[in-house]
């Protein structure tokens, strides 16, 4: 389902002027705090009414200032997972979950989408007796049970500490893989976005700085300043060749060769994404020998982008995949890097954090699309 959003709205001193289109799937709204991400999904939800513009989901117009259409939020069939769980304190977990479908008895059994949340044992409890992670899982179940046509998630992991986040992310991935409705995912953490999203909208100061397919945008060296030099980095689609190699590493197959990375929790043969930060990639013109780094992928320079600072972003093609390296301007000049040049990308195994690995591989995603 295609989504089209075009909004202008004044909120005190803050001016929101954003527009983007997305082909459905998971659309990530990425940017620093206060850049207008939440304002956009509030407008999609109908919790706020923009001054002008439109919000379209497929062929349904939810808002159009020109024609005066404004569908009230309770008629929009949206599922909204807020930053904080917002569970109703005077209702049990089961009552909370059933709130969106008052005329039906709720059962986790037979509901494949909810089973992954692992909340069956919590149904009798009250929100005060739940941990932060449990409460957020219940909030997600509640949003999904109302059978929404679109799911909005506003930093659903924000209220969780890092350990909980790592624990929670697989739930979210499994869930997102199971739903076929469009998802809008607000986050300022690129590792979450890289694992979950199909489409990326980068926000800056109330405006859309970049919008495009996630893999393309993350391997576009021109986008590096909008994404942030520390966060920028391409996504490799890999298949787990050997999840449990004897030395505590996993062997992952890419289209250009094998990678040895910290152990992943997955079956052999699983397709997944690995985000390689641009600042973690070293380039070499000749095949390096006698290095401690295990991962050396042959690649070809496709584009060199010079920014304001001392660094340059080098876009690379490695087999079927794109990589990106951020090196100093001086090195680029010394090496004589130009588009079309063959070289080797060196990736240090331990620099890839476990949070950068996971998510749905592109192939499996396509296979699941209805």
């Amino acid at each position, binding site marked *: 389902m295609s989504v089209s959003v075009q909004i202008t709205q004044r909120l005190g001193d803050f001016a929101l002027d954003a527009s983007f289109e997305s082909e459905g799937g998971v659309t990530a709204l990425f940017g620093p705090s206060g850049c207008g991400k939440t304002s956009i999904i509030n407008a999609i*939800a109908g*919790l706020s009414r923009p001054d002008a513009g439109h919000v379209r989901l497929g062929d349904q117009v939810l808002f159009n200032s020109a024609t005066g259409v404004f569908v009230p*939020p*309770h*008629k*929009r*069939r*949206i*599922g*909204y997972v*807020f930053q*904080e769980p*917002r569970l*109703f*304190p*005077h209702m049990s977990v089961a009552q909370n979950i059933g*709130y*969106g479908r008052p005329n039906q008895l709720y059962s986790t059994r037979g509901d494949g989408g909810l089973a992954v949340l692992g909340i069956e044992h919590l149904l009798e409890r*009250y*929100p*005060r007796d739940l941990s932060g992670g449990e409460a957020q899982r219940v909030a997600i179940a*509640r*949003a999904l049970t*109302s059978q929404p046509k679109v799911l*909005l998630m506003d930093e659903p992991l924000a209220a969780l500490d890092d350990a909980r986040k790592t624990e929670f992310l697989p739930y979210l991935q499994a869930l997102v893989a199971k739903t076929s409705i469009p998802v809008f995912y607000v986050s300022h953490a690129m590792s979450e976005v890289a694992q979950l999203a199909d489409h990326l909208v980068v926000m800056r100061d109330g405006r859309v700085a970049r919008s495009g397919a996630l893999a393309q945008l993350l391997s576009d060296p021109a986008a590096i300043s909008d994404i942030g030099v520390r966060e920028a980095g391409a996504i490799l689609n890999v298949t787990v060749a050997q999840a449990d190699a004897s030395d505590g590493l996993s062997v992952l197959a890419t289209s250009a060769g094998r990678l040895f990375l910290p152990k992943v929790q997955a079956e052999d043969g699983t397709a997944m994404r690995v985000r390689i930060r641009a600042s973690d990639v070293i380039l070499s013109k000749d095949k390096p020998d006698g290095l401690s780094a295990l991962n050396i992928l042959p690649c070809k320079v496709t584009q060199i982008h010079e920014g304001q600072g001392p660094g340059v972003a080098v876009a690379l093609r490695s087999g079927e995949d794109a990589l990106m390296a951020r090196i100093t301007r001086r090195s680029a000049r010394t090496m004589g890097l130009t588009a079309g040049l063959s070289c080797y990308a060196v990736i240090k195994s331990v620099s890839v954090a476990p949070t950068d690995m996971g998510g749905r591989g592109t192939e499996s995603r396509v296979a699941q699309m209805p």
Partner: protein
Amino acid sequence: MLGLGPEEWAAVGLSLRVSIVATLAILPLAIWVAHLLARREFVGKGVLNALVLLPLVLPPVVTGYLLLLTFGTQGAVGGFLSNLGIVFAFRWTGAALAAAIMAFPLMVRAIRLGFEASDPKLEQAATTLGATPWRVFRTITLPAALPSVIAGAVLGFAKAMGEFGATITFVAAIPGQTQTIPSAIYAFLQVPGGESQAGKLVLVSLVIALGAVAVSEWVARKVAGRRA
């Protein structure tokens, strides 16, 4: 019991009936106005607020006289209503009307605090789950403000039990008809040797007041017990 005579019993029964009817009848309106004042922005909000508070700041005798002018059988509203068979002047219903109007500002103020303290974010969540505004109010907003609603109702009941000036001006103090506990106490104190009867009624007032507070505490604790 307590050595109350028929006249005193009549006053106690009437006071209870007047106060309970007045509180229950005005409670929905008080909840609605309190919610309006707490949550909505609209033209004339200041005027409405002042109007609600008026009985609190006006001398009760003035309120009673205004009621007589409006709801008396010759009054604008009273004349119309008497054609429909509804008469307030010099009836217990008039006493209930006076009590309700005097209790109203206190109830609105107490309930409004509850609505102001309750979290609109929960209402947003309910809205996104497809709940109509009325369902959101019924299932989320009102339960959250319930302790304040109870407190407001008890306050209103207490005010209605104690109401004197407006009542006596509007409906006088006809024994068995419109003579509530306060006007009965006042009447007894005007007669030499009436102190003992007045004292008994004072005692009854005290028991009813303490009972109302105890019941409200009990209900409030039951409500709070279900939450964090």
